[in-house]
């Protein structure tokens, strides 16, 4: 029995060691990005030995990033032009101009809208694939899966054409809608929803639930963890989209990857500003993760059926 306690301790130690090692290896490049963001560009470039102590130029780099003419990274208060004159003073009311979006806010906005929309579409489709029988189910599933492979590099041209035909160029919808039915998300939901016991759905049917109610009253709540994972996937997918936003969006609407790429000049790469932008752009994701990972509650289906 002491033997076992010892073995348990070894297991735990190994697990911790593994996690810590992983965390450190993961953090090194990220940390370096952060360090680079705090260094003067010359310092960053001229060090031959890797430099691991942060400098103090973060704010300065941030300011030079913000001072760029062609990209706005973080937005700023907008000029509200709509107001009511009460005689004794004005009240501004144009909420859309409360804040002029920078790339950071654009990205957040687009990713949030996209994530919400796509969560709905993907979970519905995944539910259909996991829990219903219908004709052409398999071929349809495989067809959707196959589109996962389509390289965006080739789709850009016809997609651009399509968007301009329907008047969506330079619109956030143009980068939200095409992948709203994300094959990846459909696939994930389908895989996870297979673990919902059929008996659960049956008992809800007996209770008079419509098929749609099965979906949002039974399937969604019991798939909380998977939805959280999917939300992360979708958010990141949109967060990292580059080529199509670059092509379809015009200056002023750029998302983060596009904006950062503008710092890669023909002859000059603004490393300091890139690193500042990259560092800042990680913050929303940290927040997102910390919020969503709480949804990973284990044994969510426990107690439902005897088997």
């Amino acid at each position, binding site marked *: 029995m002491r033997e076992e306690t010892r073995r348990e301790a070894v297991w735990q130690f190994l697990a911790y060691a593994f996690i810590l090692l992983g965390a450190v290896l993961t953090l090194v490049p990220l940390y370096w990005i952060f360090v680079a963001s705090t260094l003067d560009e010359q310092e960053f470039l001229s060090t*031959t030995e890797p430099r691991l102590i942060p400098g103090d130029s973060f704010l300065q780099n941030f300011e030079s990033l913000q001072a760029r003419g*062609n990209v706005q990274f973080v937005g700023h208060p907008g000029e509200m032009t709509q107001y009511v004159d009460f005689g004794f003073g004005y009240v501004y009311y144009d909420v859309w101009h409360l804040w002029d979006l920078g790339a950071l806010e654009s990205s957040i906005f687009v990713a949030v809208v996209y994530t919400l929309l796509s969560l709905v579409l993907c979970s519905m489709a995944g539910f259909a694939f996991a829990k219903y029988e219908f004709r052409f189910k398999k071929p349809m599933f495989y067809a959707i899966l196959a589109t996962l492979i389509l390289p965006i590099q080739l789709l850009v041209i016809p997609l*651009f*054409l399509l968007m301009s035909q329907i008047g969506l160029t330079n619109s956030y919808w143009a980068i939200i809608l095409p992948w709203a039915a994300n094959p990846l998300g459909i696939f994930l939901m389908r895989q996870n929803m297979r673990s919902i016991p059929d008996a659960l759905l049956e008992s809800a049917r007996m209770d008079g639930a419509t098929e749609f109610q099965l979906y949002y009253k039974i399937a969604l709540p019991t798939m909380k963890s998977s939805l959280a994972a999917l939300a992360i996937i979708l958010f990141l997918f949109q967060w990292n989209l580059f080529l199509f936003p670059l*092509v379809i969006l015009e200056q002023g609407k750029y998302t983060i990857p596009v904006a950062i790429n503008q710092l890669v000049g023909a002859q*000059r790469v603004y490393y300091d500003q890139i690193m500042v932008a990259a560092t800042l752009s990680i913050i929303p994701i940290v927040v997102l993760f910390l919020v969503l990972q709480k949804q990973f509650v284990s044994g969510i289906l426990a107690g439902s059926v005897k088997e």
Partner: protein
Amino acid sequence: AGTGDPNDDSTQQNGGGGGGGNGTSGSSTTEGPAMADAVEVWGWDVAAKSLDLINDPYVEEHGGEVTITQIGRADLKDKFKSTLLSGSGAPSAAMMESVDAASWVDTGGLRDISDWLSESGIKDEFVSGKWGPLEKDGNTYALPWDVGPVGTFYRRDVMSEHDIDPSSVETWDQYIEEGKKLPDDQYLLNLPSNDYDGLWRMMFRQLGGQPFTENGAVNINSEKSLQVARILKRIRDSGVANDLASWSSGWFTAFGEGTTASLTAGAWMEGTLKAELGDTSGKWGVFKPPAIESGGPRATNWGGSNLTIPTQVSDETARRAWDYMAYTLGQKEHQLTMYEEYGIFPALKSTYESDAFDQPNEFLDGQEAGRMFADIAPEIPPYRYTIDTPAVTKAVNTHFRDMMNGGKSPKEAVDAAAQQVADRTDRDLA
């Protein structure tokens, strides 16, 4: 509903002549066919900034409204090509590198400006070497902007410390010999293994070489190409060359610290060096690139852009865009403004007479480098960029790397490269 072209009567071909407008000459817009009010021009980096300088004078004189959109170079290309290929969303005019010109022209997405060009009569004012890739079947698709006359920049302090006098160097072989005076941890120049084609093209052009013959056969295994390959091989073998990826941070660092002592590049490089390595100001000098063989030509080019108008924009917009282009690129004083402010080296020959080129350059320790480049510019041999330029780039890089590793002799390398290009592009060998 019906089929047919609703705009039949106003296609671009008729645009210039039909309206009888001479507003496109760049001097007046008061008459002639209607021009759109607003134009948007895409450019990258300093080029875009330099266009900005001309906006105010243009608007003052010609009216209209000009927006310059600054987009990163690679991004601009992706974005612009997408708009070209999908037939919508393109700007009124955009910057186009000469290297890309042939293939872009070939897409059919660019507007023929030859009528306007001939009408304006400014064609001959540009260095003749620029036109090749901008033309196809007798039509012209872009207006030249800048050229990149090549010079070899060097660290004066490093060279003199080791007793090297670049101004006396005439040929590459000489230069290599001089370079051997440098200690082991210092290199005369950088020969990046990811970018052999750049150096090869520069030297090949210097010799007047053409990648394809006039009837389209692959010519990169010509004697001239072989000469260049041998030189490059000699540089590598002699140990005077560093191998750092171009534009990488290490690459810049090496120049800053003097571990790489010289750099052969377009005239625009001075601006870049100034921006990146400001604290080495005054320690630099420049001389004409060494000749391949004694007495050989020492004029060549690296880089250079043009402005082009997509076909998809309306005629009114195109006319305005042309008007703007002709104004900014075709007029001496504006080109000079750009040169003085951002070091954009004009392709407009008439500018070379200006004493702007005679100013001593502080970064280059007071050297009057402008004049040197201005002398080189008109002598640059033309070079036939085609849609298959990328294939050439690829092939040269691949096989020269093999050659450098000793896997192939120079002869084998150029032959293999030529064969690869021929295979991939369906062309004959010259």
